[in-house]
């Protein structure tokens, strides 16, 4: 839980809330065709429950948010540019939504999806 102080009390934001925003903005980022589970165990859980925070890991170190994204990218796009864009988008969206500084967005490309073969 993170908090931002304000004069009449505290605001608590859960990791899950942040992960949800990150997940949604990652999915609307061009070139990203899906998010992937971090590991097999998580993958199995995913089969049972549809989780809106799949493929997003959020950490907090008292001041900054750190986000890890596990994504699948469309085959035939320039991976580096897509990864840059998604990390920018996620950072911007999370900072705008929560007003908390994001110090890191690490992008892990977990796979490529081939929808057409040239």
């Amino acid at each position, binding site marked *: 839980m993170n908090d931002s102080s304000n004069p009449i009390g505290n605001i608590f934001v859960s990791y899950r809330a942040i992960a949800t925003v990150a997940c949604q903005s990652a999915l609307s980022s061009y070139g990203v065709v899906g998010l992937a589970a971090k590991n097999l165990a998580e993958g199995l859980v995913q089969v049972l429950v549809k989780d809106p925070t799949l493929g997003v890991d959020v950490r907090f170190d008292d001041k900054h948010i750190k986000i890890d994204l596990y994504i699948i990218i469309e085959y035939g796009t320039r991976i580096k540019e897509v990864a840059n864009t998604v990390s920018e988008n996620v950072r911007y969206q999370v900072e705008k939504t929560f007003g908390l500084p994001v110090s890191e967005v690490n992008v892990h490309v977990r796979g490529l999806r081939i929808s057409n073969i*040239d």
Partner: protein
Amino acid sequence: MSIEEANPTSPAGNPTGERKTLDGQGLRKLVEAGLVWLRTNQQTVNALNVFPVPDGDTGTNMVLTMQAAYNEVANSGEKNIGKVAHDIAQGALMGARGNSGVILSQIWRGFARALDNLEAMNADLFVQAIHESRNTAYKGVVRPVEGTILTVIKDISAAVDEARKENDDLVILLEKAVEAADASVKRTPDLLPILKQAGVVDSGGKGLFFILEGMLRKVKGLTLETNVAAVQPLSAMQIEQSAEEIEPGQDYEVVVDFRPRQELDLEKFYADLANMGTSIQVGEGDGMYRMHIHVPTEKRYTPIDYIMGLGTITKVAMENLLAQMEEIEQKTEAPKLSLTPVKPGQIAVVAVAPGPGIARIFASLGAAAIVEGGQTMNPSTEEILSAFENLPTDKIIILPNNKNIILAARNSAEVTVKKVKVIPCRSVPQGISALFCYDPDGDLEEVAEEMTRAIAEVETGEITTATRSVEINGVKVQQGEVIALLDGELVLSSHSLDEALLGLLDKASTEDRERITFFYGDNISRSEVNRLVDLVREKYPGHEIELHEGGQPNYQFIIAIE
């Protein structure tokens, strides 16, 4: 048969002629035209920036992507359109820059797929290729955002589909595509609220429109090099700033207000003006036009005579720019800061400088922005922030150059949306030493680490006058005495500047170092500086000694010993 083969004498072709097919060479030339026209309008696209969404360099990114695409086929003599399209798509993919570049590369990829290994393209294939462009572009994203370049390619696809029912002429289809792109771009603010808030249209969509329009202009034989879209509202014309952009030979600035007798043919108007001079601007408001141009002395009346033929002139203003320039130069005796320009994606350095001379040194060593400030005038977080925001890149390194400013720099770094690294340099020499390790194209973290390490390699001496009597570190100081500080610590105090300076170098590990650099302040005369530096030269004959005007207040000297 290609367009060009049909009209070997005029590559632009015959505007009324029909075109049923296009081959590889035809496509190559159209892509070149699209690239050139996009480049001409690059700044227009860049200006469509929805700050602070991190995509304010769309025009540049799309140009670079198109350039990479065109480079693949620039020297190719290939006639097979499938092969040419494939190479273009490959180039676009490899050179894709930014989000819009990636989408553009997908559009080309789809286009190429539809033409795979075909000799030439006809109307049906064109429609199919645009369809495939749309499909491929949409496949790249799970949740397409409408009101972007994606919407524009979708609308283009629908329009050419419709147009094909009545036509099999490629030129007409291209015309329809351009029309559809234009209309679609204009609709983007209705689909995407953030565009509406910012009062702009989608930049990627606009870029795509320019590419297609460039192709159409090429076919019609219109100019691609000059931006003709630039009729601005009268209120927006910024004529006073133009004095700085004077080119040699264009000595007179002529501004004419007029009311044309009939609707002005802007393209012809621009073309005619371009024959007379440079820096052409045209503004319009309420049927009144204002024309601004720089012309050589002997042609100073030509634009007036020319406009006389077009309508009624209401006002003429003429100014001799050369005389104006001389005046400006006299006023601003200090040479202008020549900051190092930085491109989007590169790392920019912001330096805090206590004086004009030091600012110039930082600028010449690679700083992209200077914030004024030092010991007695700490810059505000806001000043630092605005320096960050004004840079075209989002990777920034800041050199606070004073221990009191490091905190403000850190605060600014936390507030901004950009990635900022603060180098904890506590003095100007440390900052300069750090700047030597600056690499604009490196990895931000690594460059920052490297620069931070460089700080330790220099010792900083400072000479100033005590403002009150005090005893620190066992050094007794009387008000008005000259004091010397080494790396921020008070080391000695003396009645004479000579003693303080030489004493300071004595205390520093000068013997082990190679170079002493002096930055003298605005409170010491040049002759005094020379005398003192000569003393130092005598004492340290083996050292390399440099002298710069720092222009900082209060400190007679800031000294780097490295």
